[in-house]
């Protein structure tokens, strides 16, 4: 099970407490993870990536395993420890002010 940690604003919007858990068949990438997240929580469409271009929103970052994955290819496999649920995939609002 994939573990996803949402930022506070998106937990409020999606009405979730704690982590979101996703079951993804096949390759686990940013794209397949976000596809699954938006299917389970449709109100998040457009909040993390642009609905038309699919590009990550400029003030959103992706962290996992103490690494910044924001600029990795959206179709690259995520770390094995994210895929097997040992580490969460963190969706973070960039710290750009109050």
């Amino acid at each position, binding site marked *: 099970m994939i573990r996803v940690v949402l*930022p*506070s*604003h*998106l937990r*409020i*919007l999606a009405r979730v407490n704690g982590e979101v858990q996703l079951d993804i068949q096949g390759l686990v990438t940013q794209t397949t993870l976000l596809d699954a997240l938006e299917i389970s929580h449709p*109100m998040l*469409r*457009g*909040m*993390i990536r642009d*609905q*038309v271009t699919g590009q990550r*929103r400029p*003030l*959103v970052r992706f962290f996992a395993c103490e690494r910044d994955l924001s600029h990795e290819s959206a179709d690259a496999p995520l770390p094995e420890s994210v895929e097997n649920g040992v580490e969460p995939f963190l969706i973070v*609002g*960039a710290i*750009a002010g109050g």
Partner: protein
Amino acid sequence: MSAVRVLVGTKKGAFVLTGDAKRDRWDVSGPHFGGWEIYHLKGSPADPNRLYASQCSSWFGQMIQRSNDGGKTWEPVGNKFEYDGVTGTHQWYDGTPHPWEFKRVWHLETSLTDPDTVYAGVEDAALFRSTDAGRSWHELAGLRGHGSGSSWQPGAGGMCLHTILLHPSNPQRMFVAISAAGAFRSDDAGATWQPINRGLHSLYIPNPTAEVGHCVHRIAMHRARPNVLYMQKHWDVMRSDDGGDSWREISGNLPSDFGFPIEVHAHDPDTIYVVPIKSDSEHYPPDGKLRVYRSKTGGNDWEALTNGLPQSDCYVNVLRDAMCVDSLDPCGIYFGTSGGQVYASADSGDHWAPIVRDLPGVLSVEVQTVP
């Protein structure tokens, strides 16, 4: 017995303030959507329990929320605002071309007859409409594309379409206002538009009397006399008696004619309200005194309304969407401040009292009169 429901959008959530007909006892609900900017909430005249809210964040974008029970519960319904066709450019602050980019919904205006039809004024300036209760949104592209769009430019708060007025009896006629482009009118239900800015004079654009480029902050009308429009421009309070074809200044004896909101009394189309602000760089009341000014003559002659409002050391602002009137008799007036106070008057402005004092900075205030 009637009651009022005051819908307050703030920088960190929405609040619903419910009062009795005397408007002296209040129940406060919220924050709804805590942490999010709520630019505007609006109830449907055709179904007062149908509400819409614009929820946004510079980080995560835009969502439209809908309530079917007067704001007790909400559901996210739609957030895809895609400009129609080639987006083109408008002017940036320095006059250079800048591509249109959707940022947020500033204002929601519900149809007078259909609770499922709602208009959205957005930044970068454009007008959208939903006819399925907020699920899907489609641009009325005749506004942005009518010809002058390339010369529009942002005001200090962004290039926003912030005012939408629907004619009370002619569904073909509607008005919008944009900072900093001006006022526009449609006579075919939003398909085509024309600028209506003749008589405006703005020193901060190269041609002070240009057809577009004016930083209109707000326009208002009374349902009983929809050919008369009132305008708070960046500087200058203006009036049109011909549906916007021409404007004349009615600032009269105001201590400052800079400000944001303008409103019309619910039962007297000649009684109007503004909140003078010192200047465009000093967004607080002159002399540290929070004063609503009322004209009972449709402009020019203004009186200060101060009873119950702070008259010393007050340096808050009142934004363009943060003042409104109810339809009770006597008419109630409400406004919210950047300091988080929401003030109410139950007697047309003669006396004021705060409903709440310590909300996040107030972005918008709307009121519904409910059975």
